[in-house]
């Protein structure tokens, strides 16, 4: 009898921790949802305006969404080709021993905290941009995009390299015995085979870029206006930088605070969607 209880007790203890963990995302989602209810009910479609001016009852978040989109697209436009080509060079051209060293370095470098990139951006990148483009302040959407590209670069190279080096060596040997040279192997074999995993990696990088806060917050300029449409060389605001900069300034129960929580909720939704897509395609990490 005693043995039976011990068995069941162990199982229940383990089950408790397990269900606590899988309940956490649900809890986070509902806490954010309940707190942002007021924003959706009272402001409603007013959220979709371009001006943020709490004193005048204007709570448009479009400028922040636009800023986030611009920064992420800019970062991906720079980082995707660069990391894809680098990973190809790393797997196809670099000798095996050197490849492992570079890969280990990149894996470790992927963990540099974002606040350090922020310091780097504000002290080195922004003054440099001021000089190059001859603008009054370097704290722009463009700076945010560049910094973000730099941040996701090591992670993306290392993930692409994982995918390419998982392709069996027989495939390469067969292609080269058919008379294909290295660049033809890349175009005809490597890229078509790894099309879907590469797409997943881009999705992963996108979700990481969307959620980046501290570095972006320091270099983006933090102006709540809709930025000049043509030039990313103007100060702007992303969802994350707005949250990071201003959430502490509003009192609980104010409607501004509720709108901010709604923005955090909007940030959470792509994460959930991406997780479903990635799980469906079975790319784990």
């Amino acid at each position: 009898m005693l043995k039976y209880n011990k068995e069941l007790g162990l199982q229940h203890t383990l089950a408790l921790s397990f269900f606590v963990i899988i309940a956490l995302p649900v809890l986070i989602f509902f806490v954010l949802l309940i707190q942002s209810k007021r924003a959706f009910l009272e402001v409603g479609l007013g959220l979709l305006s371009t001006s943020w001016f709490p004193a005048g009852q204007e709570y448009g978040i479009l400028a922040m969404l636009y800023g986030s989109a611009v920064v992420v697209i800019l970062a991906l436009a720079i980082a995707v080709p660069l990391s894809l080509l680098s990973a190809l060079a790393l797997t196809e051209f670099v000798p095996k021993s050197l490849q492992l060293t570079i890969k280990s370095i990149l894996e470790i470098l992927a963990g540099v905290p974002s606040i350090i990139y922020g310091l780097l951006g504000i002290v080195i990148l922004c003054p440099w941009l001021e000089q190059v483009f001859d603008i009054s302040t370097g704290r722009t959407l463009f700076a945010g995009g560049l910094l973000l590209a730099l941040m996701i670069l090591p992670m993306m190279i290392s993930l692409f390299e994982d995918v390419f080096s998982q392709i069996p060596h027989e495939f390469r040997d067969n292609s080269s015995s058919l008379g294909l040279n290295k660049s033809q192997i890349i175009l005809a074999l490597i890229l078509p085979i790894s099309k879907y995993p590469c797409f997943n990696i881009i999705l992963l990088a996108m979700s990481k870029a969307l959620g980046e806060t501290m570095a972006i917050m320091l270099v983006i300029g933090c102006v709540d206006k809709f930025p000049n449409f043509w030039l990313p060389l103007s100060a702007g605001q992303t969802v994350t930088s707005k949250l990071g900069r201003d959430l502490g300034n509003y009192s609980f129960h104010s409607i501004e605070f509720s709108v901010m929580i709604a923005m955090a909720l909007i940030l959470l939704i792509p994460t959930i969607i991406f997780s479903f897509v990635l799980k469906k395609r079975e790319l784990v990490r």
Partner: protein
Amino acid sequence: MKKINHYLICFFCWLALVISLTLVLGVIVILVGKGIGAINWNFISQPSTNFGQSGGILYQIVGSLLIVIVAFLLSFPVAIAAALYKSEYLTNKKWQYWSDMMLHILNGIPSIVFGVFALLFFINICGAHVSWWLGSLILAIMMLPILTFSSYFYLQRLSPEIRDSCLALGLTKGQFIRSFLLKRSFVGAVSGSFLGLARILGETAPIMWVATVFAGGAIPSSWSEPVATIATHILILAQQANDPQAVSNGWGASLILISLVFILAGIGFYMRRQQLRIQ
């Protein structure tokens, strides 16, 4: 034409690799080059004064380590228990799918959302005061999926013969877990712990509203006191970017932070490689 294409592709691949490595290693060179000048014994052993412009970062180092170590102690047992349950008791395919899903979502939630959640849940709903253990709690939540996955995958790599022979010896499931699997899940979680610690050590966003003060932090003497961490200290210094002394201290603090992170991540990756080798 074929030849030209070949050379073009090779050229662009090499060019991209050189650019990326220059950028990535450039970051490290800049950090080391600028940071090394600011670090001396006083910088590590003195508290900061005048909003970090002068003095060292002793309290920040202590605060960071305190928050991170308590977070680790909180999440380690929970993660091991969850991994054991997922690996041994959870047979339902649907539950497996959803638990994977939830762990992935928890792993992918942006750090700022954790910060917002912590502010809302701990301070607004539960009515707690700003204190360092709230930071440990939220960072423990951030660490959980890494630890759980790491422990779970190591359990899954157990060869079926060992499992069969243990059960054939007449052990019940509970005895098998207590006498054999517990140790194994421990080993798996340790490599994940180093990676998780490396990740949460540099986090600023989740803890900046619930656990830290931006000026005048000290070594806490009770539960309900905020602390200063290295990461928040860098944030303050970065905001005084026009002041050379503050920036110099910022580089020093960054170098210390990044050294800690790299040591932890290096140990973690090394252990994971070793584990992938043995069965």
